[in-house]
């Protein structure tokens, strides 16, 4: 093996760093209609009258569409395998506007200026209703977000639009109440995480056109091209056979683009006008009507004995779906499965949840997908328990953490086949010099230096659901084409899959040309989400290479006129060991292109019955100014078990990037609404994501286990890494101040006021 576990440059790196026009917005053809959306100023309203006559007279306006013009089949924009768990609860344009920014009209014009001028001339009379904004009061509230009769849930997720319920669920292993009643100490704590915007640098954008066959073709910044094809078919009421979706380079996704946020609008315009049409979301639109992390309130009841053995955890989560149910019923599942399972040995555990509709922006998929919220709550509760028992928070984890070989009863009874969480803990302690630094010390300037810890896990793909297919073709001269259906969104999957293929085929990585994704040409893949690409698509690559090697041997043997059993393939030639007989791969490639019935190519699919968790330990050192409450990140130590590391650079950068996003969640980021339900901090001026001055120093080490069901022993990395900062920083702030803050983000004023009140008491 030469490429796996090395530091290969991304195949597209040089085109990106030299600024080549490779993104959706760079590829929009001339004479494309500019699409803009008139958005609702109200969080809950019905359109009484809408008049577009004056707007249509603006020179350059090609078309304006309202709810009267669009199909009437409800659909979901969540990019998920059919049948989607997310309810079919929206229309392209609806008479009922369920959140501020819900689209009222689609405007298509020759120029942006004309579209904006027309937007101002559309006259709308709204029947404004009281909005339901508080998600803790949404269940069974008389204000109904989805009063419509044709609300539809394809899966039995417990959706009930007459109760504002998007989904509801409960599971229990062992007997929680009984186990809690026998514990020496039981803590009940409620935690609150906020909605966060993914804030990928490239906003949502799509252009569409009718191709030479008269089919609807889209170029879109999406993580889920094949799902987009189905979503468009549902929304537009046209056959899937009439739709093609192409994904170029993507300027970041982090889950945001696992929903078809922008696709339906230009597609509808193209269908209606026959003309190319493009929409490029402004940053404001991406903030106010994107697909952010679900806000959640979680109550943890945790019971332990004085010796630090945790016996039971009971977790209830309430999630705010917002106006539409995209990813609502699925995100919530991870809150339980991927937090409780960190503690494999508990006697009993229970998870119950409700996902409710409100008149706020709908949630979506954001890196971590519920695991982030659940892990924050459970890990903070464990830290609070450690404090209650006067234990080192590392020690309580060393006593209770999941170990390799354990059956994870809260994780679909999967056996934990690969896990070095214990080694990650030891490594992180060593990196941070925990023994020396825990819990805190006061510096000469009065600032407090303290440390905090948390563990995390995630999954690797969705077990029994995700499917990845790849095709590899041998070409003349013996180079390969690797066709993938998964979507590289900057993560580097095109490259890591080529690394795997190069090792499987014993060839130089430059001999492998990668191409993705075009739904007309790429083999089927569910898309890049749920930390699936390395683990699921990677395994499809391994299987395809095995098949291809067999075919190369057969072709070589035939050319050499010897039995295939006598041949070997070393990546460059097929030969007969001990005999002077060989044929080069180049010759086989040329021969495969001439006069027979077997071009050499292989295509295999992969779906995994299990979703082996990657694990990590994160430790943070902060500098806290008790006068102002300001927290600075000094140092972050991450010890990660993602199984075999495929590309050390990319895995490291994934970890560093995830941790900084997590720092943003812990300290800065919070989508806020005014009393009318309009988002207040709808720009980077107000919604602050971490800059390089906020990130501190981050150090990453890998403690690799070997996952027997993964390609080369790999699991996943992309989502896991966002999960430790919130609980670890919360813990560090406690170690500095003696105060637990149970609502994110933890702002300087919260800390300063908390310390003030503590002194007063």
């Amino acid at each position, binding site marked *: 093996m030469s490429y796996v576990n090395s530091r290969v440059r991304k195949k597209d*790196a040089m085109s990106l760093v*030299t600024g080549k026009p490779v993104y959706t917005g760079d590829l929009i053809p001339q004479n494309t209609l500019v699409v803009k959306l008139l958005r609702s100023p109200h969080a809950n309203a019905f359109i009484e009258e809408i008049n577009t006559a004056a707007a249509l007279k603006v020179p350059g306006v090609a078309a304006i569409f309202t709810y009267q013009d669009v199909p009437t089949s409800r659909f979901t924009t969540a990019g998920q395998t059919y049948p989607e768990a997310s309810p079919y609860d929206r229309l392209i344009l609806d008479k009922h506007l369920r959140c501020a920014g819900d689209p009222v009209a689609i405007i298509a014009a020759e120029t942006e200026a004309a579209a904006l001028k027309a937007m101002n001339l559309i006259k709308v009379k709204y029947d404004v209703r009281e909005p339901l904004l508080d998600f803790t009061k949404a269940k069974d509230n008389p204000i109904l977000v989805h009063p419509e009769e044709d609300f539809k849930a394809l899966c039995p997720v417990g959706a009930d639009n007459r109760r504002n319920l998007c989904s509801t669920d409960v599971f229990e292993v062992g007997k929680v109440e009984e186990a809690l009643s026998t514990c020496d100490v039981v803590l009940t704590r409620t935690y609150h995480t906020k909605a966060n915007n993914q804030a990928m640098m*490239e906003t949502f954008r799509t252009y569409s056109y009718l191709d030479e066959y008269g089919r609807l073709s889209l170029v879109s910044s999406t993580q889920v091209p094949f799902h987009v094809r189905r979503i468009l078919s549902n929304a537009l009421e046209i056959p899937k056979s009439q739709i093609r979706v192409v994904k170029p380079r993507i300027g970041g996704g982090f889950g945001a683009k696992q929903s078809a946020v922008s696709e339906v609008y230009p597609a509808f315009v193209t269908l209606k006008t026959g003309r190319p049409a493009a929409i490029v979301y402004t940053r404001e639109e991406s903030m106010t009507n994107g697909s952010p992390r679900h806000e959640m309130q979680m109550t943890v009841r945790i019971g332990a004995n004085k010796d630090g053995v945790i016996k039971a955890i009971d977790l209830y989560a309430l999630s705010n779906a917002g106006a539409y149910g995209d990813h609502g019923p699925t995100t919530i599942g991870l809150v339980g499965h991927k937090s409780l399972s960190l503690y494999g040995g508990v006697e009993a555990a229970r998870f119950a949840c409700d996902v409710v509709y409100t008149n706020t922006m709908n949630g979506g998929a954001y890196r971590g997908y519920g695991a982030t919220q659940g892990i924050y709550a459970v890990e903070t509760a464990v830290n609070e328990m450690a404090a209650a028992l006067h234990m080192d928070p590392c020690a309580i984890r060393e006593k209770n953490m999941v170990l390799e070989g354990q059956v994870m009863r809260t994780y679909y009874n999967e056996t934990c086949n690969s896990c070095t969480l214990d080694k990650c803990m030891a490594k992180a302690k060593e990196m941070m010099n925990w023994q020396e630094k825990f819990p805190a010390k006061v510096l000469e300037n009065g600032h407090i230096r303290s440390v905090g810890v948390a563990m995390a896990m995630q999954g690797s793909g969705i077990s029994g659901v995700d499917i990845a297919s790849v095709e590899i073709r041998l070409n003349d001269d013996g180079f390969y084409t690797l066709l993938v259906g998964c979507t590289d969104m900057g993560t580097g999957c095109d490259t890591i899959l080529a690394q795997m293929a190069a090792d499987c085929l014993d060839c130089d990585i430059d001999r492998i040309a990668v191409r993705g994704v075009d739904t007309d040409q790429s083999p089927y893949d569910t898309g890049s989400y749920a930390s699936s690409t390395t683990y699921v698509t990677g395994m499809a690559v391994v299987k395809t290479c095995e098949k291809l090697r067999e075919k190369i041997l057969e072709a070589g043997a035939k050319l050499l006129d010897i039995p295939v059993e006598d041949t070997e393939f070393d990546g460059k030639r097929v030969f007969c060991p001990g005999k002077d007989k060989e044929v080069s791969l180049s010759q086989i490639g040329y021969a495969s292109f001439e006069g027979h019935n077997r071009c050499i190519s292989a295509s295999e699919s992969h779906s995994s019955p299990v979703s082996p968790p990657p694990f990590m330990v994160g430790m943070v050192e902060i500098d806290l100014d008790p006068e102002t409450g300001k927290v600075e990140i000094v140092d972050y130590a991450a010890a990660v078990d993602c199984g075999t590391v495929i590309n050390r650079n990319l895995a490291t950068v994934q970890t560093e*990037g995830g941790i900084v*996003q997590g720092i943003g969640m812990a300290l800065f980021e919070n989508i806020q609404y005014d009393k009318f339900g309009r988002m207040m901090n709808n720009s*980077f001026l107000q919604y602050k994501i971490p800059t390089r001055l906020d990130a501190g120093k981050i150090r990453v080490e890998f403690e690799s286990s070997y996952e027997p069901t993964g390609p080369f022993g790999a699991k996943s990395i992309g989502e896991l890494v966002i999960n430790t900062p919130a609980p670890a920083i919360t813990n560090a702030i406690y170690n500095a101040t003696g105060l637990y803050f149970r609502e994110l983000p933890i702002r300087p004023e919260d800390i300063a006021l908390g310390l003030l009140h503590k002194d007063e008491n």
Partner: protein
Amino acid sequence: MQITVTINGKKYTEDVAPDLVLLDFLRAHGCYSVKRGCETSNCGLCTVHLNGKPVLSCSVLAVRADGKSVTTLEGLQKEAEEFGGFLADEGGEQCGFCSPGFIMNVLAMVRELENPSEQEIQEYLAGNLCRCTGYQSQLRAIQKYLAWKQEGTK
């Protein structure tokens, strides 16, 4: 209004709307490396050099560039490849959408500051947001690039 602007060494004289921002003027002239990431002058994605100094092209009217020279990454391909190679070797470009503006500012910094300290680097580039990388790999790339340049001038 008629303006004359030199873009990457080539002179253009054109009528433009008074409210046209330089960013859109540049993209209309094929400089697709110049990206828009926000509407509030916060992200740094649209950084170009105006008479050699870094500016946010979203916050400069095209008419303000009249008589001036604008350089985008398209005009600095050799430098982009040199520094970009260091970035690529760290995996620090990731999605790449912020890379052109970031690299334009790195190149401006290298001209402006001699032997910048880590703190000076982080402060100079604080206006260049990146959501993928967590900034660590970018810092490693810059430090290696600076060391390489120092080697070259010895």
